[in-house]
């Protein structure tokens, strides 16, 4: 694929299989407190 380079990312569809443990940080508990961003949290699922 000379014209397209794909960056390595987590496959969101596959992440449904072992996801949803809820151990990750609540999005508003850190620096923002005034907006909602979920994509910048770390996954803490030990079983994934």
């Amino acid at each position, binding site marked *: 694929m000379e*014209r397209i380079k794909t960056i390595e990312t987590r496959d969101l569809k596959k992440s449904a299989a072992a996801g949803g443990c809820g151990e990750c940080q*609540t999005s508003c508990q850190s*620096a923002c*407190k*005034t907006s909602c961003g979920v994509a910048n*949290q770390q996954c*803490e699922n030990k079983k994934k």
Partner: protein
Amino acid sequence: MVHQYKLNGYNIVLDTCSGSVHVVDDVAYDIIALYQQHEAEEIVKEILSKYDGLPDITREEVLLCLEDIRALEKAGKLFSADIYENMAFDFKNRSQVVKALCLHVAHTCNLNCSYCFASQGKYQGDRALMSFEVGKQAFDFLIANSGSRRNLEVDFFGGEPLMNWEVVKRLVAYAREQEKLHDKNFRFTLTTNGMLLSDEVDDFLNREMSNVVLSLDGRKEIHDHLRKDYAGRGSYDAIVPKFKRLVEKRGGKNYYMRGTFTHNNVDFTNDIFHMADLGFTELSMEPVVCAPTDPYALTEEDLPELFRQYELLAEEMIRRKKAGNGFVFYHYMLDLKNGPCIYKRITGCGSGTEYMAVTPWGELFPCHQFVGDPKYSLGNIWDGVTNLAVQEEFRHCNAYARPECRDCWAKLYCSGGCAANAYHATGKISGVYEYGCELFKKRIECAVMMQVAESEEA
């Protein structure tokens, strides 16, 4: 859903439902834009016409690129289907645990900042400090409602939480006892204006708090304009040395220096760079939350400049990282390989369900931004959530709850956005704060671009 944009010399294609990120050349960029609405021969014609005269752009080349696009589509990395809507509602309905509290230990403050969304810590009510007994019950409430969740979060918030320092210390000691008994792991954070930091407080915070949030707006003149004490004096000179001392002793543990920008400093990157130049490396800067009539409120006219500032910030961060003096900006922290699963992406921030705020009197609210609004009182830490109708409204908040978000490429990054922002902008939590959306989308574009730049460097 596919989102394409050009930034800092990169052509970026996001396939939002799979989370895939592609960097492409101009030809592939154009072909992807045409792919779903046009037949192959139409695309060939269009591309050859646009790139007429370039020897390497041939019919065969365009067909080859189309094959690559089809292969990515087949692999679920491009034009992947949006299949998560039912999952969003089902998952949130099933989850009944509470895992995080914003503990308002002090509804009072030793600063008198004019833009404070908490009305100088009082939240439109009386000044008050949380008693140890109320705080202890809040921890008991959290543990009792946390189900099998092990990691529990408590943010000591205010007002200024260090105005209730003895209670903070006693509550942390109580929680450390309880976590052993119940197999929990408490993660504490504390948000402070810095005025009451001392050696003793520093050592305690550095030992017990997994993160501390330090409020500084950046340049002295910007900070002092709105963050004043009750005598009208700016607080910059009093707090900056204290923040430096705390961070020097923190031993690499997380912290954020967090500022707020307003209409007065739309060139807010200069404030971020100022923080970095002071030696702080974990930074956050948020748009002010206030009524549109406030003199410092951000305006529609500010938007193009704010977009430019976010781009400048990203470009400068790349430059500084290469030069060996990089820093972190909260909204640009994306971990594309080990980021959150799809459930986190679709269920929203958890306010009113797994995350609640507790007032000094033990009253529960969906989050710190709803505290003081009687319509949104959820119950209390002794009887639990009794206002089930309001909780149900919050349970309904997710990436698919708002019709306006249906075709938005960013919904799996913001998960439907902040309910409080929506409420303040539209009068209902199911509304959309469009101004915030515009800023959010620009930040995500920049954050992804930085990841792309890093990957290209590697």
